Protein backbone atom coordinates (compact mmCIF):
# COMPACT_ATOMS: atom_id res chain seq x y z
CA UNK A 1 0.00 0.00 0.00
CA UNK A 2 2.84 2.37 0.94
CA UNK A 3 4.64 1.50 -2.28
CA UNK A 4 1.55 2.08 -4.36
CA UNK A 5 1.00 5.46 -2.70
CA UNK A 6 4.64 6.44 -3.34
CA UNK A 7 4.33 5.35 -6.98
CA UNK A 8 1.20 7.49 -7.42
CA UNK A 9 2.86 10.55 -5.85
CA UNK A 10 5.98 10.07 -7.98
CA UNK A 11 3.81 9.73 -11.06
CA UNK A 12 1.94 12.96 -10.35
CA UNK A 13 5.25 14.70 -9.60
CA UNK A 14 6.69 13.46 -12.90
CA UNK A 15 3.61 14.56 -14.86
CA UNK A 16 3.96 17.98 -13.22
CA UNK A 17 7.61 18.26 -14.22
CA UNK A 18 6.93 17.36 -17.87
CA UNK A 19 3.77 19.47 -18.11
CA UNK A 20 5.43 22.51 -16.55
CA UNK A 21 8.42 22.61 -18.89
CA UNK A 22 11.00 21.73 -16.22
CA UNK A 23 12.24 18.80 -18.33
CA UNK A 24 13.11 21.25 -21.15
CA UNK A 25 16.62 22.64 -20.51
CA UNK A 26 16.06 25.53 -22.96
CA UNK A 27 13.05 26.61 -20.89
CA UNK A 28 14.95 26.28 -17.58
CA UNK A 29 18.02 28.19 -18.80
CA UNK A 30 15.72 30.87 -20.24
CA UNK A 31 14.19 31.23 -16.80
CA UNK A 32 17.63 31.56 -15.17
CA UNK A 33 18.65 34.13 -17.85
CA UNK A 34 17.27 36.96 -15.71
CA UNK A 35 19.65 39.58 -17.12
CA UNK A 36 19.31 38.47 -20.75
CA UNK A 37 16.23 37.19 -22.57
CA UNK A 38 14.37 36.28 -19.42
CA UNK A 39 11.55 33.76 -19.84
CA UNK A 40 9.38 34.14 -16.71
CA UNK A 41 7.10 31.12 -17.41
CA UNK A 42 8.77 28.77 -14.93
CA UNK A 43 8.21 31.25 -12.11
CA UNK A 44 4.66 29.91 -12.17
CA UNK A 45 5.88 26.36 -11.50
CA UNK A 46 7.63 27.16 -8.24
CA UNK A 47 4.97 29.76 -7.43
CA UNK A 48 2.04 27.39 -7.84
CA UNK A 49 3.81 24.47 -6.11
CA UNK A 50 4.76 26.61 -3.10
CA UNK A 51 1.25 28.11 -2.90
CA UNK A 52 -0.12 24.58 -2.62
CA UNK A 53 2.40 23.36 -0.01
CA UNK A 54 2.20 26.54 2.08
CA UNK A 55 -1.51 25.90 2.62
CA UNK A 56 -1.74 22.11 2.46
CA UNK A 57 1.25 21.32 4.74
CA UNK A 58 -0.40 23.43 7.46
CA UNK A 59 -3.43 21.15 7.48
CA UNK A 60 -1.58 17.87 6.87
CA UNK A 61 0.94 18.45 9.69
CA UNK A 62 -1.87 18.99 12.20
CA UNK A 63 -2.86 15.32 11.96
CA UNK A 64 -0.99 12.07 11.40
CA UNK A 65 0.21 10.46 8.17
CA UNK A 66 -2.26 7.92 6.84
CA UNK A 67 0.20 5.07 6.15
CA UNK A 68 3.00 5.76 8.66
CA UNK A 69 3.38 6.00 12.43
CA UNK A 70 4.67 9.57 12.40
CA UNK A 71 6.00 12.32 10.14
CA UNK A 72 9.66 11.99 9.22
CA UNK A 73 10.80 15.58 8.83
CA UNK A 74 14.17 17.36 8.71
CA UNK A 75 14.98 18.73 12.16
CA UNK A 76 17.98 20.97 11.50
CA UNK A 77 17.40 24.71 11.67
CA UNK A 78 20.96 26.07 11.49
CA UNK A 79 22.23 27.81 8.39
CA UNK A 80 25.80 26.55 8.17
CA UNK A 81 28.64 26.66 5.68
CA UNK A 82 27.82 23.19 4.30
CA UNK A 83 24.26 24.24 3.45
CA UNK A 84 25.25 27.46 1.69
CA UNK A 85 28.31 26.01 -0.10
CA UNK A 86 26.28 23.03 -1.24
CA UNK A 87 23.38 25.15 -2.44
CA UNK A 88 25.78 27.50 -4.26
CA UNK A 89 27.52 24.60 -6.07
CA UNK A 90 24.17 23.04 -6.95
CA UNK A 91 23.00 26.33 -8.50
CA UNK A 92 26.12 26.55 -10.67
CA UNK A 93 25.58 22.99 -11.92
CA UNK A 94 21.90 23.77 -12.60
CA UNK A 95 22.87 26.84 -14.63
CA UNK A 96 25.52 24.95 -16.60
CA UNK A 97 23.22 22.27 -18.01
CA UNK A 98 19.64 23.22 -17.13
CA UNK A 99 18.54 20.29 -14.97
CA UNK A 100 18.04 19.95 -11.23
CA UNK A 101 17.76 16.36 -9.90
CA UNK A 102 14.00 15.73 -10.42
CA UNK A 103 13.75 16.87 -14.03
CA UNK A 104 17.05 15.14 -14.85
CA UNK A 105 15.64 11.79 -13.69
CA UNK A 106 12.30 12.40 -15.44
CA UNK A 107 14.07 13.38 -18.66
CA UNK A 108 15.89 10.01 -18.73
CA UNK A 109 12.82 8.63 -20.52
CA UNK A 110 13.61 10.88 -23.52
CA UNK A 111 16.65 8.61 -24.02
CA UNK A 112 18.98 11.53 -24.72
CA UNK A 113 22.58 10.32 -24.10
CA UNK A 114 23.73 13.66 -22.65
CA UNK A 115 21.02 13.45 -19.99
CA UNK A 116 22.27 9.98 -19.09
CA UNK A 117 25.80 11.38 -18.72
CA UNK A 118 24.43 14.19 -16.54
CA UNK A 119 22.63 11.75 -14.23
CA UNK A 120 25.67 9.43 -13.92
CA UNK A 121 27.85 12.47 -13.11
CA UNK A 122 25.27 13.60 -10.57
CA UNK A 123 25.38 10.21 -8.82
CA UNK A 124 29.20 10.33 -8.86
CA UNK A 125 29.00 13.80 -7.33
CA UNK A 126 26.68 12.54 -4.60
CA UNK A 127 29.11 9.71 -3.77
CA UNK A 128 32.01 12.18 -3.80
CA UNK A 129 30.16 14.51 -1.43
CA UNK A 130 29.93 11.68 1.09
CA UNK A 131 33.69 11.13 1.02
CA UNK A 132 34.25 14.88 1.15
CA UNK A 133 31.92 15.26 4.13
CA UNK A 134 33.73 12.49 6.03
CA UNK A 135 37.11 14.19 5.42
CA UNK A 136 35.76 17.53 6.62
CA UNK A 137 34.19 16.00 9.72
Amino acid at each position, binding site marked *: MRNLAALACGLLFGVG*LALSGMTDTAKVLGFLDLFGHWDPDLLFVMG*AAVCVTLV*SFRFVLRGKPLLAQAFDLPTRKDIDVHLLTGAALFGVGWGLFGYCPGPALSALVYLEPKTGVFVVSMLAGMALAGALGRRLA
Partner: protein
Amino acid sequence: MTSYLTPLLGGLAIGLAATGLLYLLGRIAGISGILWAAIAGGLSHDSGWRWCFLAGLLLGPLLYHLVTATPYPAAPAAGLPFAVVGGLLVGVGTRLGSGCTSGHGVCGIGRLSVRSLAATVTFMATGIATVYLLRQLWGLA
Protein backbone atom coordinates in the same frame (compact mmCIF):
# COMPACT_ATOMS: atom_id res chain seq x y z
CA MET B 1 -1.09 33.94 -21.47
CA THR B 2 -1.33 30.31 -22.53
CA SER B 3 2.42 29.91 -22.03
CA TYR B 4 1.81 30.45 -18.31
CA LEU B 5 -0.95 27.86 -18.13
CA THR B 6 1.07 24.64 -18.39
CA PRO B 7 3.74 25.83 -15.90
CA LEU B 8 0.92 26.80 -13.53
CA LEU B 9 -0.85 23.43 -13.86
CA GLY B 10 2.47 21.59 -13.66
CA GLY B 11 3.35 23.48 -10.49
CA LEU B 12 -0.03 22.60 -8.97
CA ALA B 13 0.57 18.93 -9.79
CA ILE B 14 4.02 19.08 -8.14
CA GLY B 15 2.56 20.76 -5.04
CA LEU B 16 -0.21 18.16 -4.83
CA ALA B 17 2.29 15.32 -5.26
CA ALA B 18 4.40 16.70 -2.40
CA THR B 19 1.24 17.07 -0.30
CA GLY B 20 0.25 13.48 -1.08
CA LEU B 21 3.61 12.06 -0.04
CA LEU B 22 3.53 14.01 3.22
CA TYR B 23 -0.05 13.04 4.00
CA LEU B 24 0.25 9.38 3.00
CA LEU B 25 3.81 8.43 4.01
CA GLY B 26 4.75 11.34 6.27
CA ARG B 27 7.76 12.08 4.05
CA ILE B 28 9.22 15.14 2.35
CA ALA B 29 9.29 14.92 -1.46
CA GLY B 30 12.94 15.92 -1.88
CA ILE B 31 14.16 14.20 -5.01
CA SER B 32 17.91 14.36 -4.38
CA GLY B 33 17.44 13.00 -0.86
CA ILE B 34 15.09 10.23 -1.97
CA LEU B 35 17.46 9.26 -4.79
CA TRP B 36 20.55 9.04 -2.61
CA ALA B 37 18.77 7.27 0.25
CA ALA B 38 17.36 4.75 -2.23
CA ILE B 39 20.83 3.97 -3.56
CA ALA B 40 22.38 3.88 -0.09
CA GLY B 41 19.54 1.67 1.16
CA GLY B 42 19.77 -0.66 -1.82
CA LEU B 43 16.89 -3.08 -2.08
CA SER B 44 16.19 -3.10 1.66
CA HIS B 45 12.55 -3.21 2.69
CA ASP B 46 12.73 0.33 4.05
CA SER B 47 13.74 1.79 0.69
CA GLY B 48 10.91 0.20 -1.26
CA TRP B 49 8.74 3.31 -1.27
CA ARG B 50 11.68 5.39 -2.55
CA TRP B 51 12.22 3.17 -5.58
CA CYS B 52 8.47 3.25 -6.25
CA PHE B 53 8.41 7.06 -6.05
CA LEU B 54 11.39 7.26 -8.45
CA ALA B 55 9.71 4.81 -10.83
CA GLY B 56 6.67 7.08 -10.84
CA LEU B 57 8.90 10.07 -11.55
CA LEU B 58 9.99 8.36 -14.78
CA LEU B 59 6.61 6.90 -15.68
CA GLY B 60 4.85 10.25 -15.22
CA PRO B 61 6.49 12.08 -18.13
CA LEU B 62 6.26 9.00 -20.32
CA LEU B 63 2.52 8.84 -19.70
CA TYR B 64 2.08 12.60 -20.10
CA HIS B 65 3.74 12.73 -23.52
CA LEU B 66 1.94 9.59 -24.65
CA VAL B 67 -1.55 10.60 -23.55
CA THR B 68 -1.40 14.26 -24.62
CA ALA B 69 0.67 13.52 -27.75
CA THR B 70 3.00 16.37 -26.73
CA PRO B 71 6.38 16.01 -28.44
CA TYR B 72 9.47 15.53 -26.24
CA PRO B 73 11.38 18.76 -25.56
CA ALA B 74 14.48 19.43 -27.66
CA ALA B 75 17.68 17.73 -26.51
CA PRO B 76 19.80 19.83 -24.10
CA ALA B 77 21.81 22.38 -26.09
CA ALA B 78 24.79 22.34 -23.74
CA GLY B 79 27.67 20.06 -24.73
CA LEU B 80 29.03 16.95 -23.04
CA PRO B 81 31.54 18.79 -20.79
CA PHE B 82 28.62 20.83 -19.40
CA ALA B 83 26.72 17.60 -18.72
CA VAL B 84 29.69 16.12 -16.83
CA VAL B 85 30.66 19.20 -14.81
CA GLY B 86 27.05 20.29 -14.29
CA GLY B 87 26.05 16.83 -13.10
CA LEU B 88 29.00 16.59 -10.70
CA LEU B 89 28.24 19.99 -9.17
CA VAL B 90 24.53 19.20 -8.82
CA GLY B 91 25.40 15.89 -7.13
CA VAL B 92 28.01 17.29 -4.74
CA GLY B 93 25.96 20.41 -4.04
CA THR B 94 22.64 18.75 -3.29
CA ARG B 95 24.21 16.31 -0.82
CA LEU B 96 26.40 18.91 0.86
CA GLY B 97 23.45 21.31 0.97
CA SER B 98 20.94 18.61 2.03
CA GLY B 99 18.46 19.15 -0.79
CA CYS B 100 17.47 20.54 -4.15
CA THR B 101 14.63 22.48 -5.79
CA SER B 102 11.98 20.07 -4.53
CA GLY B 103 13.15 19.42 -0.97
CA HIS B 104 14.26 22.96 -0.14
CA GLY B 105 12.21 24.96 -2.66
CA VAL B 106 8.79 23.32 -2.82
CA CYS B 107 8.63 21.45 0.53
CA GLY B 108 11.03 23.43 2.74
CA ILE B 109 9.43 26.78 1.98
CA GLY B 110 6.04 25.09 2.42
CA ARG B 111 7.13 24.15 5.95
CA LEU B 112 8.32 27.74 6.52
CA SER B 113 11.89 26.48 7.05
CA VAL B 114 14.32 29.41 7.10
CA ARG B 115 17.15 26.97 6.36
CA SER B 116 15.42 25.87 3.17
CA LEU B 117 14.62 29.45 2.19
CA ALA B 118 18.33 30.34 2.58
CA ALA B 119 19.32 27.36 0.42
CA THR B 120 16.71 28.23 -2.24
CA VAL B 121 17.79 31.87 -2.47
CA THR B 122 21.42 30.71 -2.72
CA PHE B 123 20.97 28.17 -5.53
CA MET B 124 18.65 30.49 -7.47
CA ALA B 125 21.27 33.25 -7.20
CA THR B 126 24.22 31.11 -8.32
CA GLY B 127 22.09 29.56 -11.08
CA ILE B 128 21.18 33.00 -12.41
CA ALA B 129 24.79 34.19 -12.02
CA THR B 130 26.09 31.15 -13.92
CA VAL B 131 23.75 31.72 -16.88
CA TYR B 132 24.62 35.43 -16.82
CA LEU B 133 28.35 34.69 -17.00
CA LEU B 134 27.92 32.07 -19.72
CA ARG B 135 25.53 34.00 -21.95
CA GLN B 136 26.05 37.70 -21.35
CA LEU B 137 29.74 37.89 -20.50
CA TRP B 138 31.33 34.97 -22.31
CA GLY B 139 28.76 34.56 -25.08
CA LEU B 140 28.63 30.81 -24.49
CA ALA B 141 25.67 28.41 -24.36
